[in-house]
């Protein structure tokens, strides 16, 4: 039996899934991304470092802040620039808002229809007006935060290497705090909703990679942890392999030759004890127990993370007292800088080698979706025999595979609505 899903598509691209089943045994699963190469690492070569963050933020419109900040941090690491506490705090706030926005969009408009049995958010909207309205309110709130801190909703302008080119005013921050606090119930309702959905009963052991810190969950700095094993970001190439595969335009990323998962589930599996009290209370009241080896629980984890983002955003805004300060001077020295951040979809790595003129000699960017790709393949390999036993319906199998892929919230996930299933049975 040969199953081909001909069109998965990367966020702005295309992908397909090829599955080979012989006598009920899955012989081969290949997620093939045939989207044309993006060439961002090549595009920034020979460009001055001051241009690079805004160029790479264009990799994605949804997680543009993650790429922007990761790039700035990597360059600052290379130049040994230490930013102020205020810059760190504002960056964290920007990141939290970006995570909120991405999770809300994915959870309500892409994942929820799957679990409620609808083919799209539009067909669900009439019956679930309250939920859709809540999603729109939360999206708007996240946009407001990004706009206030970053200067505009997408592709922020104000964060620059060394600080902020323009700071929000104290009254804008105060106003924002008021607005954020008004949405507490919306965040809680979201976490409760995704904590009580009926997720498919499936689990498979894998490795979970996320940034870890001793005292608090951090999205912008720290070491990487795979379970209890600490991995230094600077030496990422010693433990993370990127291999070219014949069937895909995306590389196959592994940790010590094995697949791994990044994203909300990995973060909660690794760092749940450091989450805010409020998020832990709601999480513990749900039926889902962490650590979990069920990839569908990634959606529940995203819901619980939203409470954590809310609490952290409120705490930041409460304590923030804006001081007028300029970005640190950019004195170019040759060097190499690596940065890891927790983007909405998981760990994102940027690495740059910079010459004495402040121009990029070499760049390497590893996006979370690329890291998750191998894990998705392995999940499909493991879940498919059971699916085939349960049904012979091509549509049902396609829908279930799509649902699994979508649970990862990969940049290609959403596009799985587009999947075309070609089934050749021998």
């Amino acid at each position, binding site marked *: 039996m040969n199953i081909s899903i001909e069109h998965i598509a990367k966020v702005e691209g295309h992908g397909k899934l090829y599955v080979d089943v012989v006598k009920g045994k899955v012989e081969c699963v290949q997620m093939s991304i045939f989207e044309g190469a993006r060439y961002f690492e090549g595009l920034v070569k020979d460009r001055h470092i001051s241009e690079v963050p805004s160029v790479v933020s264009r990799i994605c419109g949804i997680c543009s802040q993650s790429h922007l900040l990761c790039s700035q941090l990597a360059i600052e690491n290379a130049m040994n620039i230490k930013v102020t506490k205020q810059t760190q705090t504002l960056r964290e706030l920007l990141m939290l808002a970006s995570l909120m926005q*991405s999770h809300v969009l994915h959870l309500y408009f*892409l994942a929820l229809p799957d679990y409620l049995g609808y083919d799209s*958010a*539009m067909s669900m909207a009439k019956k679930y007006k309250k939920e859709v*309205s809540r999603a729109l309110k939360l999206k*708007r709130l996240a*946009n407001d935060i990004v706009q206030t801190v970053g200067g505009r909703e997408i592709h922020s302008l104000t964060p620059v290497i060394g600080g902020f080119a323009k700071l929000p005013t104290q009254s804008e921050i105060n106003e924002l705090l008021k607005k954020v606090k008004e949405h507490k119930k919306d965040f809680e309702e979201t976490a409760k909703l995704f904590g009580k959905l009926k997720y498919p009963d499936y689990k498979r052991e894998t490795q979970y990679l996320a940034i870890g810190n001793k005292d608090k969950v951090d999205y912008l700095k720290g070491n990487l942890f795979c379970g209890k094993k600490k991995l230094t970001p600077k030496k990422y190439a010693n433990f993370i392999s990127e291999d070219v595969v014949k069937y895909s335009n995306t590389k196959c990323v592994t940790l010590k030759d094995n697949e791994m998962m990044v994203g909300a589930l990995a973060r909660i599996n690794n760092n749940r004890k450091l989450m805010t009290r409020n998020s832990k209370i709601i999480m513990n009241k749900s039926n889902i127990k962490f650590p979990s080896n069920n990839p569908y629980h990634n959606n529940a984890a995203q819901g619980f993370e939203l409470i954590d983002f809310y609490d952290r955003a409120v705490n930041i805004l409460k304590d923030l007292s804006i001081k007028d300060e300029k970005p640190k001077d950019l004195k170019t020295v040759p060097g190499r800088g690596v940065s890891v951040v927790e983007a909405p979809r998981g760990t994102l790595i940027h690495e740059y080698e910079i010459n004495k003129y402040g121009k990029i000699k070499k760049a390497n960017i590893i996006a979370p979706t690329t890291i998750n790709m191998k894990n998705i393949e392995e999940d499909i390999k493991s879940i498919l025999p059971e699916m085939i036993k349960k049904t012979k319906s091509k549509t049902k199998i396609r829908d279930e595979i799509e649902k699994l892929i979508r649970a990862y919230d990969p940049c290609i*996930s959403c596009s799985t609505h587009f999947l075309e299933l070609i089934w050749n049975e021998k």
Partner: protein
Amino acid sequence: MKYFCLGNEFVQEDSYAIKLCRIIKKQNPNLELIECQSSDEFLQNINDDKIIGIIDVVRGIKEVRIVRNHELKKSSNIINSHDFDINFFMNILKEIGIIKKIKIIGIPQQELQDTTIEKVKSLI
């Protein structure tokens, strides 16, 4: 009634509604004309407006006219997170009852002429 003027002032063929918005606003400062570059800005400016207006460039029309909903390309099924466009949001806002009616004024994709401006003013 609020009118959202959509487009990007830096992309010539997509800039005409924004330019038109500025001209009309100068002549009639009381009109609620809002420049809007993205679906986010659109969402941010909708409050309790049951009926809203959209002014946008429409490829293929020769003169200013009202564009009916059935003429729009359906975007009810979003494929990925990048598909949350204004059309999607307009439709979902209608589905959940926040908006009751949308009036879309289409303008031709060409340099603004006095007749275009006057026609839009008469339709507002």
